[in-house]
């Protein structure tokens, strides 16, 4: 019988000794010849899903005897280890070169970690050189703590007690204990050990130390030395835990006092806490502690960001101040610059308490002043007390804040201009905070020359832009410009040198994107442009089918009241696109327009698209659209259906005399639809165009007569009332958060928008979303609502999409009004865990306060509603709004108002209530305004009893004075609105 067959029999019999004997008796040639057949046989005798631990261990032994170091790593039976003595014998029987290679691999290759005990056997007998590497150390730890410690779910795993006994038993081998301590000198293995909380590693070591298997003193020293190796905290965390579990005695602490002090100056918060606790215990035990060195430990702890650590440090300094006030006070100065206001306050209070004890109070005061810039505003009084120098008042408001200057600027504007900026009744001599600015999306000079887009006229520029699009580095308006350029220049430029680059990039895109749906329409265009190949019916947008599910969404709903019954089949790719159905997603809507352009390119036809925006934001000047329609009619070209629909959705207000008549005279359906949008009676036959025209009217685009800025117009804010929210909740009980936000973002009679807003962002990337924001310039509020509905479903998730950022960032533009949907998006983004989204939200808040678009009542109520519904935290928006409040006095005042509204609307007392209270205190102190909202005062009065931190804060807030003779925030608010009015006036001057 061949060796491999006999080995298989021994494996099935689970007899490692027999395997050993077979292998040691065989020649190397026989062993190598058995390798491949053995592996094949093992597939039959060891089923993949059957654990069979003993059989696997025996098989591993056989493989060790037949394979080389290279083939060994491909064998995945290592989970249950290998019987060591037979394995040593088998390896000793192998030729020296193979043995050496295997041992080298065993101590360096993570896949051969199971062979580490065998290598260790050779090392301890001096038959192999011990490598001092992280990989070897990792193997040592793996062996000491059991090879299965990373696989806790395995049913064959022992219980914790059994596992601890196993560790203790292994550590009773002094050589292995030495290996353990040697492994502690390597950073990477320690990271794995410190983060492995699946097994009580520290308990096992403490038990081993208790039993004398390892020396307790050595373990204690290692805990300290581990922190002194400049390893990252994730590697040393275990040492702090181990130190706590070892609970060193007084004598043990005394013996290590010097080292403990050194540990305290390490960067690791765990080490600092360890040192503070140990030094505190030494002080309690009556030991002498060097105040200078101990203070350095406290200073390091106060230099971190953790409140718990800083508080411990200050408590420690309190004790230290009795024996060494000078270094203690110097150390406390580090806490004055701590990010948390309460730590700053405690540190300043400590300095103030101990100022009389120090030898040179003047120097200390000067040192405190060096930190003054970092101190929170509400602590300025305390800072003044410590330094003895009165703080300066509010920062100068600047020329914009000067009353006479404001009066001059007000006088230079017309009444409608002032009204558009929300300054109808402003009296500069008695400045008061004006109400939030509301305006319609077309109130800004959307057609001003400064906002005009340029078109592509050069084939080289067109090629460069197409390649950039393929590389994903264009935005929405660029895509429209490229489509327009292709439609106009594509037919004539396909053979130019410039197009050659597009051809190469197209092939790359095909290779890299595979079936990626978003690339498909671009490839359509490139194929049609370069090769005159018509776009093929393709099963695209598969992944969107998941959420589509046959339901209506934004543009589909806009252009057609019902979704075709076979829409689901179409989006699943089961039905080819035939160019007549309506798309159901903005991105898909855009793709279908690309499909139309591709058809013309394939036919070699050039044309001007109707829907190309003439101005930023996606607007089309009506006169330009009229000209395009006339030109198309002159060339006897039929407008594309979706091009026309998109054009109608983008028509800007502002009508030249006779434009309606000209459009009616063109006679085509799109022209008549455009005329009807601009106020002319015209019969439109196409259902989609009819619908688009209706949408414009339904959404409130006024009739043609109004020119932008020509009359004051204030869009009504949709009232955000709880009954509406509750009503919405009634309709969809299964999705309260979504409904809540929908209701907040949606007029009650258009409740379907919530779903539309949600799907708007699904799956959209930066370019698609950026393009989608230009698809319907009439309703920017939708994008805020979209953010609200997509992010709100999981506020705790630290993720956000490009689409969320683009949608929210669209609202930063000062000429985009903020409606209820936008405020909802803002509130949600301020509350979201994701820092990037929150950064955009903070930017939006700052921008919206700057020019008066932010309605602090709406935002404040939204934040309260989120808390009342149990879905939002206050600490997150508090942190973000504190950044906002630092921006200027106006921003501080706005944040103050937001928090007052929130407090008044709270129905519960959340755990993190201190966060808005601190935020309100900081903002109020900064702008010198107290709590002047009745609801907020009432809330605070209820809170102000007792000794809790929040009660103390409430009392401070109630006593916060208002300096009424300082109208800086009000002046800044008016100045911000004036800046908008002046900008609009200047831009309107250029509108024809």
């Amino acid at each position: 019988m061949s060796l491999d067959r006999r080995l298989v029999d021994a494996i099935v019999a689970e007899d490692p000794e027999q395997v050993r004997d077979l292998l040691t008796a065989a020649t190397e040639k026989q062993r190598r010849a058995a390798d491949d057949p053995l592996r094949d046989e093992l597939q039959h005798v060891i089923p993949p899903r059957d654990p069979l631990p003993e059989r696997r261990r025996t098989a591993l032994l056989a493989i060790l005897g037949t394979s080389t170091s290279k083939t060994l790593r491909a064998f995945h039976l290592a989970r249950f280890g290998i019987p060591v003595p037979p394995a040593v014998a088998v390896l000793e029987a192998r030729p020296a070169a193979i043995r050496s290679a295997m041992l080298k691999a065993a101590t360096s290759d993570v896949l051969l970690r199971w062979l580490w005990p065998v290598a260790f056997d050779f090392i301890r007998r001096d038959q192999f050189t011990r490598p001092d590497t992280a990989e070897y150390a990792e193997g040592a730890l793996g062996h000491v703590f059991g090879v299965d410690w990373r696989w806790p779910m395995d049913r064959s795993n022992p219980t914790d007690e059994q596992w601890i006994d196993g560790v203790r038993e292994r550590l009773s081998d002094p050589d292995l204990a030495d290996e353990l301590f040697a492994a502690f000198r390597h950073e990477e293995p320690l990271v794995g050990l410190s983060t492995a909380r699946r097994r009580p590693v520290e308990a096992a070591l403490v038990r081993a130390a208790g039993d004398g298997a390892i020396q307790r003193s050595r373990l204690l020293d290692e805990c300290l030395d581990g922190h002194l190796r400049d390893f990252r905290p994730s590697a040393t965390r275990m040492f702090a835990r181990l130190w706590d579990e070892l609970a060193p005695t007084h004598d043990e602490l005394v013996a290590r006092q010097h080292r403990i002090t050194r540990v305290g100056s390490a960067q690791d918060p765990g080490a600092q806490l360890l040192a503070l606790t140990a030094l505190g215990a030494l002080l309690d035990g009556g030991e002498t502690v060097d105040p200078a060195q101990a203070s350095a430990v406290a200073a390091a702890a106060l230099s971190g960001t953790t409140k718990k650590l800083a508080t411990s440090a200050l408590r420690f300094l309190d004790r230290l101040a009795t024996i060494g006030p000078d270094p203690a006070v110097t150390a406390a100065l580090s806490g004055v610059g701590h990010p948390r206001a309460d730590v700053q306050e405690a540190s300043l209070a400590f300095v103030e308490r101990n100022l009389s004890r120090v030898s040179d109070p003047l120097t200390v005061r000067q040192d405190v002043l060096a930190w003054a810039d970092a101190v929170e505003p509400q602590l300025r009084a305390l800072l003044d007390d410590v330094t003895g120098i009165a703080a300066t008042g509010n920062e100068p408001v600047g020329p914009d804040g000067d009353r006479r200057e404001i009066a001059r600027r007000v006088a230079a504007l017309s009444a409608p201009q002032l009204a558009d900026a929300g300054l109808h009744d402003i009296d500069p001599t008695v400045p008061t905070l004006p109400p939030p600015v509301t305006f319609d999306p077309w109130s800004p000079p959307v057609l001003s020359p400064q906002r005009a887009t340029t078109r592509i006229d050069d084939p080289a520029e067109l090629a460069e832009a197409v390649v950039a699009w393929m590389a994903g580095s264009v935005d929405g308006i660029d895509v429209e410009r490229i489509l327009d350029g292709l439609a106009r220049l594509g037919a004539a430029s396909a053979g130019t040198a410039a197009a050659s680059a597009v051809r190469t990039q197209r092939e790359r895109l095909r290779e890299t994107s595979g079936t990626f749906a978003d690339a498909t329409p671009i490839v359509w265009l490139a194929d049609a442009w370069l090769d005159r190949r018509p776009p093929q019916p393709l099963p695209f947008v598969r992944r969107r089918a998941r959420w589509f599910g046959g339901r209506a969404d934004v543009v589909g709903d806009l252009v057609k009241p019902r979704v075709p019954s076979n829409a689901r089949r179409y989006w699943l790719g089961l039905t080819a696109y035939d160019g007549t159905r309506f798309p159901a997603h903005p991105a898909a809507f855009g793709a279908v327009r690309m499909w139309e352009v591709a058809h013309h390119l394939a036919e070699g036809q050039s044309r001007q698209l109707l829907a190309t925006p003439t101005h930023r934001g996606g607007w089309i000047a009506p006169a330009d659209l009229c000209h395009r329609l006339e030109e198309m009619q002159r060339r006897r070209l039929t407008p594309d259906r979706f091009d026309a629909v998109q054009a109608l959705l983008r028509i800007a207000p502002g009508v030249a005399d006779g434009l309606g008549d000209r459009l009616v005279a063109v006679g085509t359906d799109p022209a008549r639809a455009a005329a009807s949008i601009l106020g002319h009676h015209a019969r439109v036959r196409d259902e989609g165009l009819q619908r688009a025209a209706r949408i414009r009217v339904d959404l409130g685009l006024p009739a043609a007569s109004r020119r932008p800025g020509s009359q004051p117009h204030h869009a009504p804010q949709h009232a955000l009332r709880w009954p509406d929210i509750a009503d919405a909740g009634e309709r969809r009980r299964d999705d309260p958060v979504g409904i809540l936000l929908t209701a907040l973002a949606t007029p009650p009679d258009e409740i379907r928008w919530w779903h539309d807003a949600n799907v708007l962002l699904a799956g959209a990337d930066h370019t698609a979303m950026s393009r989608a924001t230009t698809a319907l310039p009439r309703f920017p509020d939708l994008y805020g609502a979209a953010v609200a509905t997509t992010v709100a479903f999981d506020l705790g998730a630290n993720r956000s999409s490009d689409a969320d950022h683009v949608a929210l960032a669209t609202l930063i533009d000062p000429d985009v009004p903020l409606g209820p949907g936008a405020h909802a998006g803002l509130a949600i983004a301020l509350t979201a865990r994701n820092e990037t989204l929150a950064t955009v939200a903070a930017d939006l808040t700052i921008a919206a306060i700057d020019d008066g678009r932010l309605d602090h009542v709406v935002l404040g109520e939204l934040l309260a509603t989120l808390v009342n519904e149990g879905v939002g935290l206050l600490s997150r928006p508090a942190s973000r709004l504190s950044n906002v409040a630092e921006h200027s006095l106006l921003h501080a005042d706005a944040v103050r108002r937001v928090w007052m509204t929130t407090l008044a609307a709270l129905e519960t007392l959340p755990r993190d209530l201190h966060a808005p209270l601190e935020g309100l205190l900081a903002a109020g102190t900064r702008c010198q305004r107290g709590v002047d909202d009745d609801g907020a005062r009432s809330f605070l009065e209820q809170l102000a009893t007792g000794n809790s931190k929040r009660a103390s804060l409430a009392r401070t807030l109630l006593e916060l004075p208002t300096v009424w003779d300082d109208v800086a925030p009000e002046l800044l608010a008016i100045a911000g609105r004036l800046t908008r009015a002046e900008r609009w006036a200047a831009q309107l001057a250029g509108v024809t």
Partner: protein
Amino acid sequence: MREVTYRYVAPSTVSGTADERAVMLATAGGRSANPAFFSGFAEQPTLTARALLTIAEVARTRYFDPGAASRSRDPVVTSNMDVLRFESLSACNGVYARFDLEADAVDGTFLNWGTTNVDLNNPMRTALAGITDAEPLRLTVGRDELTVDTLDGTVVERRVPLPDRWVRGFAEVTVAAGAMMPIRAVAAGPARRILRELPRLRAKRPGWVTWTPQGARLTSTPHDTAVFLAGPQRLGSVGRLIPLVQGLRLYAPPPAHRAGVGGRASSQRAAQPSAWELVFDGARLVLVLSPEVYRGFSGEGGILTALAHTDPDDLAAAARLLHGQSMIDPAPLADELSVDPSTAWSVFHALGGAGRVGFDLASGGFFHRDLPFERRALDELQPRLGDARELVAAGAVTFDGASASVRSGDTRYLVRRDADVSRCTCPWFAKHRGERGPCKHVIAADLARAEVHS
């Protein structure tokens, strides 16, 4: 990939008694096998030790894709006879750190000028972590020959892969720093707060650091006084120095360069490098961060234009002027080089790209620093430039008025000038819009045009 072999006569050590600590930094390579640069005392032991630890940490860290295996290269130390400069570049090529210890901050003798590798091994790091101001710190950079002779001959030798891109990245930092201007100086209090808070931000996307009365915050909107920052966690390396910081100076490219030279889409921001200079008494530590966490300095291509247009003779002449200076202002040297002042700057930028000088943001000038690695020809270090020269040599460039057509493989790319910026139809330009230097087609067109003109 080449390898570098660090051959130290003995490992770096920290030794001494309770009354005095002695840091002996072993050196390898440079103008001699194991040069000696300094012997004396560091006036601020804690600062010196922590700064060295920071340099070592940057050298061994991969800030991008931290799980990927990599071998760290040893830091280098330069002696300019009045300042010791310790430099390192992260394994990912995206973070550069330099600690400048000026003559005021040391009490001792500068023995020689030059640049060498320095050994900061694990036991050394452990020892450095325990150094405090309580005891004086004797600092020795390199052993003098007498000491070397008395050693037992235990040579520490380590072979580490030395990718071209890492060497190129080291050199490219000089160019990136040379294009920066001071943006903001922050006092000690806010500086410490900024350095504490920014690294804790878990922002997954880059942003702009803007200033508040108490410190700074990250914003999504650029403006002239903001500094672009990608991967704030990369600033975490300086954590151990925060309690000692006396001020912070921020540097970034001038606002005019911020929109991206190629006209990036309006809604997308141009990523940029930034420099964070921590100021101490008599010392500075500079961190230069690449524009994105995933972008190493090696691919930035900032040096390519200067290299392409620099006359090799000028380069050689400028190199002959180098003799360990701590501050080199190229403008006054223009006469010696027989070029105009702007060309002199360009020549020194090219020298920076070759790893022969560094740039000191604080003084606004170059300093002599020959990277202690075997230097290949510039073209080999800069593959884009080499490719461009091959295209020119192959006659792939043809001109049609102001535009150039560059044939590369089967594809013709069109290079045209638009408002003093060369644009190309290749994917590289489409993707980066000139933010990572010119593509090889643009360089080839420029080289061919220069040939035509000459």
